[in-house]
C-alpha cells in the first residue's frame, strides 16, 4: 500500500510543548516538509526569537541561531550577507515582528534582503501570558487591554504585511491561516513560493500566518479556529498582498 502521510524527515522526535490547537506546530510541520521537498535542508538556517516558538530548534532539524527579541531580520541579514549560499528564514510572532522588531523587519524588506520571514500572527503575546499585541483586534480582551482594545486608548491593529508590501525590496508577501485543511494547504504553497523567491535571489519574501492561540484567547480549540475566520480575517484579509515575481 502507498504511504500518503508520514512524519516529515526533518521533524525531530521531540514532543511539542505547544498548547492543543496552537498553530505553531502546524507551521513547523510545513517548514519541515518543505526542507525536504525543496531540498534546502542542507543549507537552511532558522532564526527564532523569544516567543512561544523560541524552542523551534527542538523540532525543526536544521541549523538554528536564536535572535534577541525582534532582531530576527537583522541577524538573518548578517548571516545572508556573510554566506549568500545559505537559505535563511526567520520565524517570528506578531509581538516580535510588529512591535519591538518593526524597524529591523521593514528595513530588511526594503533592502531586499534575500531572506524569508515566517510571521505567526495570533493577535497576542503568547509566551509572556497573553498581553496585548500590536495586532490585537479592537474590543479584543487581553491581560493588558482588560476592557477590550479601544482605539482611543490603544490605537488600531497594525497591518505589518501591508506596510512591508510598500517597500520596493519586498517581492512576495502573502497572508494565510492554519485553521482549516484548506488554509493549511494554501499556507504550504505560500511558504514554498516564499522560499523559492529566496532561492531565485529576487529579494525579500514573507508569509503572515493567522494562527489560533486558544490558551490566551480563552477559547476552545474549535471556537478559536472559527474566530480566525469570523473576526481575524476581517481585519487581516487572507490572500496575496504583493507579488512581483510574475509567476
Amino acid at each position, binding site marked *: 500500500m502507498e504511504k500518503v502521510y508520514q512524519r516529515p524527515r526533518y521533524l525531530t522526535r521531540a514532543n511539542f510543548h505547544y498548547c492543543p490547537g496552537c498553530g505553531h506546530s502546524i507551521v513547523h510541520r510545513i517548514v519541515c516538509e518543505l526542507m525536504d521537498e525543496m531540498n534546502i535542508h542542507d543549507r537552511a538556517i532558522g532564526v527564532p526569537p523569544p516567543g512561544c516558538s523560541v524552542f523551534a530548534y527542538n523540532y525543526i532539524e536544521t541549523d*538554528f541561531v536564536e535572535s534577541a527579541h525582534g*532582531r530576527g531580520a537583522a541577524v538573518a541579514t548578517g548571516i545572508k550577507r556573510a554566506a549568500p549560499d545559505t537559505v535563511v528564514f526567520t520565524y517570528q510572532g506578531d509581538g516580535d515582528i510588529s512591535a519591538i522588531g518593526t524597524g529591523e523587519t521593514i528595513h530588511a524588506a526594503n533592502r531586499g534582503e534575500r531572506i524569508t520571514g515566517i510571521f505567526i500572527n495570533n493577535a497576542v503575546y503568547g509566551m509572556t501570558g497573553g498581553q496585548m499585541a500590536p495586532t490585537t483586534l479592537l474590543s479584543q480582551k487581553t491581560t493588558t487591554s482588560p476592557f477590550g482594545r479601544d482605539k482611543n486608548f490603544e490605537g488600531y491593529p497594525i497591518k505589518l504585511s501591508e506596510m512591508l508590501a510598500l517597500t520596493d525590496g519586498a517581492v512576495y508577501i502573502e497572508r494565510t491561516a492554519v485553521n482549516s485543511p484548506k488554509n493549511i494547504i494554501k499556507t504550504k504553497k505560500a511558504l514554498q513560493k516564499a522560499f523559492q523567491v529566496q532561492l531565485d535571489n529576487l529579494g525579500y519574501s514573507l508569509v503572515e500566518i493567522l494562527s489560533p492561540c486558544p490558551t490566551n484567547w480563552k477559547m476552545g480549540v474549535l471556537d478559536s479556529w472559527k474566530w480566525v475566520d469570523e473576526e481575524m480575517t476581517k481585519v487581516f484579509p487572507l490572500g496575496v498582498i504583493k507579488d512581483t515575481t510574475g509567476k
Partner: protein
Amino acid sequence: MVAKVLMYGNTAIGEAAIRAGCQCYFGYPITPQNELTEYMAANLGRRPGCAFVQAESEIAAINMVHGASVAGVRTMTSSSSPGISLKQEGISYLAACELPAVIVNISRGGPGLGSIIAAQSDYFQATRGGGHGDYRTIVLAPASVQEFADLTMRAFDLADTYRMPVLILGDGMLGQMMEPVEFDREAPAVPPVRADALRGASGRPRKIVKSFTSNPADLEEINWSLYRRYQVIKEKEPAADTFLTDDAELLVVAFGASARIAKGAIKEVRAGGMKVGLFRPVTLWPFPDKALRAAAERVKGILVFEMNMGQMIEDVRLSLNGDRRIDFYGRPGGIIPAPSEVARVIARHYHQQGLK
C-alpha cells in the same frame, strides 16, 4: 619594506580590520567615528565575498554582526557612546553565544547626547560588561594611530581565540588625529571562515546557537564555564605600557588619549628635574593589575588622570589593594587639557607629596 602612510585613527582601524580578514562590517553613523564607517563603505563593501551594510540603527548593526559571526566570518561594528549603549543587549547575546566580534567605541562625552568631543566616560560601561548578565569583554585602549591599527588586528585574533566580543575603546581625539602608520599584514585574498560556522547541516549534524536556557543548573554551568575562560584571559592577556618608570618617584596612571597627554606633560616636568613616570593600561579588561603593582612598588605617589570623573581609578585602587594613597585629576566634560596644564597638576602633586 612596509611603507608608512598618513592616516586618521578612524581610517587606520578600517584598513587594519580589512587586513585582519574582516569580511562584514555593519554600522550606523555617529560622530566622531564616521570616517571609519565611510572607509568600510568605500574599501570593504565591494570586495569579493565581503559585505558592508549601513544599518537602520545600532541595534540592527550589532545583530547583523551576530548573524555574520554565526556564519563564521570576521565581523565588526563601530559606534560612539550613545550608539554603544544601544548595542549592549547585542553584546550580551554575543558573549552568551560565545561568538567572536570586534566592537569599536570612538567615545565622546556623556551622559545622554553629551558632546561630540573626546571624553573617557564610557570606561565603566566598557569594562563591566555593559549589558545584562555576568559577562566580560576584552577591552583594548590604543593611544596612537599606529596602535589603532595594531590593536584592531589583535582584537580580531583575541576574539577568535576566546570566542567572545572584543571592544576597542578609543575616543574622538585619537580617532580624528592623523599620524603615520604602517601595516605588517596583507589582506587575505579569501577571508577565512571559522570551522564552527553555521551554514546549513550539509555533511554534518545540525547545530544550534542559542543563549536561552530553561534549566537553571545548565545556566550555572554555562556561566561557570565563561568564568573559567575569563580567568585564563586575566592570567594571559593583561597588557600595559610604561614610560620613564625606572627612577620615578611619582607615577601617573592614564589610558588612551589621557595617557598621550600625560606623556607630553611628563616630558615637560622631567625637563624641570621631577622624576615622574607613566603607567598606561593597554588592556582595560583584563586590567594589568600585576604590572601596576610592580610599577607602583618603588614610587612615593600615584596620580590617576582620566577624562571623566574617576572610573579607572577604581581598578587602580583594586589593583593596589587600598594600601596606597591615590590622587586623581579628571576632566569630565569633553575638554581636552593641554600637556602643559596636566604638567602643572603633576608638579603640584609632586611638591605637595614632598618629592623633590
